[in-house]
């Protein structure tokens, strides 16, 4: 036990000795979560729109004000002709052009089909898609209003009204979705990357040989090397959760203890992967490239942290079941937003436990073989 303690102390001393690492460990998460919290926003509002009103009737002005009042569009300029408006899109000063051709108002008044056009800069596909959705919603709503005010179908027209009720995130704030996810990313970086590099550095500097000739058992060395990173990881859970709740006002509806406990299970996999990477590479640069680029990036992108898994093709969806972060992402969102406890999250917890044990076993076997 004392030996183990000494390895842990040595490891902490080493981390502390690299003075610049302290801010990296503790400032980086805060910077990351702040940037994430404010930058990551998929709510599309204030789409810069250039206006081509060839009609200049009361109806066309009415519709334009509908677009502006919706809050989704900002009129940044107006042009006489549509092709002039296209230049605005090419230069990037506007993302959309609304074209109301001459005769639009007259068509509406005489109850014909009135055509209008939106020209969208499709180079940013996802926001273009959403902007298009808004444009058609505004147009549709206007159409319904015209119907109600001008046509007045007899009072008893049987229509269906859709009454949405949104659970967990009633105002549909994308921040609530993304900010808790930062926890997973920070834990990945801090535990996987740092533990991989911590082990490889000893190899590179040659101190691994010294450790091997000391009377430390392999498991003591292993636990001693990994424990500090696990502790740092757990501190991050407190830190990031605090910033998420108090800084970004994201509700923590479930129990913090559940979150903490399940985070420990997640750390098994990340530390194990870190160790595994360290047995596969020769130097720190490879460790970084391997851990950060080959392991972490795909895991983050395919875990559902940013891009929903449901939207991926079937084959890749199946593949995501192999990624521990996937389960942790479900846990984080379950605990934070849905207020879930173990009664709902036990399958995820069980998988994380199984994966963690499996990865750690493989990694420590490899680690041990190298030591012998």
């Amino acid at each position: 036990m004392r030996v183990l303690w000494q390895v842990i102390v040595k490891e902490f001393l080493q981390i502390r000795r690299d003075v610049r690492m302290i801010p990296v460990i503790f400032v980086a998460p805060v910077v990351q979560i702040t940037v994430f919290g404010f930058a990551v926003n998929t709510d599309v509002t204030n789409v810069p729109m250039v206006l081509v009103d060839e009609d200049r009737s009361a109806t066309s002005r009415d519709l334009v004000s509908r677009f502006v009042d919706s809050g989704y569009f900002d009129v940044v300029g107006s042009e006489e002709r549509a092709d002039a408006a296209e230049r605005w899109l090419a230069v990037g000063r506007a993302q959309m052009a609304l074209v109301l051709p001459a005769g639009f108002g007259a068509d509406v008044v005489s109850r014909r089909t009135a055509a209008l056009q939106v020209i969208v800069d499709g180079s940013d596909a996802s926001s273009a898609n959403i902007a298009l959705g808004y444009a058609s919603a505004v147009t549709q709503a206007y159409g319904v209003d015209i119907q109600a005010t001008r046509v007045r179908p007899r009072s008893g027209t049987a229509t269906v009204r859709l009454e949405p009720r949104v659970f967990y995130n009633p105002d549909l704030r994308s921040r609530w979705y993304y900010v808790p996810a930062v926890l997973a990313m920070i834990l990945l970086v801090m535990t996987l990357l740092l533990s991989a590099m911590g082990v490889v550095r000893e190899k590179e500097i040659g101190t691994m040989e010294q450790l091997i000739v000391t009377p430390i058992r392999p498991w003591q060395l292993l636990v001693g090397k990994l424990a500090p990173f696990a502790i740092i990881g757990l501190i991050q859970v407190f830190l990031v959760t605090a910033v998420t709740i108090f800084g970004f006002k994201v509700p923590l509806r479930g129990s913090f203890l559940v979150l903490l406990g399940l985070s420990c299970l997640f750390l098994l996999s990340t530390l194990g992967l870190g160790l595994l990477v360290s047995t596969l590479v020769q130097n720190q640069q490879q460790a970084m490239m391997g851990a950060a680029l080959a392991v972490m990036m795909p895991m983050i992108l395919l875990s559902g942290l940013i891009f929903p898994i449901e939207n991926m093709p079937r084959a890749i969806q199946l593949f995501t079941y192999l990624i521990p972060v996937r389960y942790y992402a479900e846990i984080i969102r379950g605990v934070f937003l849905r207020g879930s406890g173990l009664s709902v999250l036990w399958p995820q917890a069980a998988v994380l436990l199984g994966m963690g044990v499996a990865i750690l076993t493989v990694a420590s076997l490899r680690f041990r073989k190298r030591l012998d």
Partner: protein
Amino acid sequence: MRRLRAVMLKELRQIRRDPFSLLMLIAFPALMLVLYGFALSFDVRHVRLAVQDRDRSPRSRELVASFTHSTYFDLVATPAPGQDLARLTETRVARAILVIPEQFGRDLAAGREATVQLLLDGADSTTAATILGYARALVSAANADVVTEELARAGRRPAPRLDLSPRILYNPDLESTQFLLPGLIGLLMMITAVLSTALSVVREKERGTMEQLRVAPLRTLELILGKTFPYLGISLLATVIVLVTARVLFGVEIRGFLPDLLVVVLLYLFGALGYGLFISTIANSQTFAFQAGLLTSLLPALLLSGFVFQIRIMPPWLQAITYIVPNRYFLVVLRGIILKGERLTTYWPDVWALVVYGLVVTALASLRLVRRED
């Protein structure tokens, strides 16, 4: 000139000796592109829908059919009345639950407005907003049909219809790859240029070989150029591979003028390599260099450049920060050239910003390097 070549050769030999890192530098970007292209999209399809039809009338079945026959929704459960609906969303069996009340058919038959409820899992706000949009569109389409029928039956003129025809420029199918590609090029060049330059210099420091280079008869400029040129080459190679991959696998064409593309890529690399050098003058360990590089270049390139998340809707203080992120300018020009087929001259302000960034960063790095030498 000969000494410059000697440094470059040394650096190249060092790169070659570590084929794993080299492979990562060159192959990783293309791999990312494939991943992005095939796996990632914000397009919402096949939403898991549960339907609780308490009415079971022809009209309610009609409404359910209009949902399930669209490609947007997949029917996954039909909970009986009284079943705990919240459990369905909490266990994520269903994303959305359509609840049709008992009197639905009767209300419609009596000419009253009938209400149906859509319970939505809002945790993933973007997806939820899209689902809500789909549902509203389906219901209002059904309503429009009803109104048209009524008017026709009453022998009245039909209501005016607004026909919105969208025209999508540059990327008519709204493919995510098309717009992710330029951002991806910026991202990968950040990785190769900033990180690899910084690491290669810091590694020499860590191993103590930097002193050897210092005492060698080399000018600072020769040392800097010799160390950065090989990575410039690797970055360019990786860019070409990504462009070819995008062309072959995803049909992304470069619509603009190729020399324009080369100029802006070189300008951007000039800044990125300079920044890598700058980090290397601060860092003493590779760990620090990597973390610092990741935090100050890769993270902004990912989040603050307009790559996926729009700058326009960020808070003003954060928008102010984006002005020192070179990817912000690079992306505008790159998207312009690749997707819009514009010339470099369309984007003068952004090009100049890149030039200024490169000059400032390189000046800072060389100042620090020179001072260390004294």
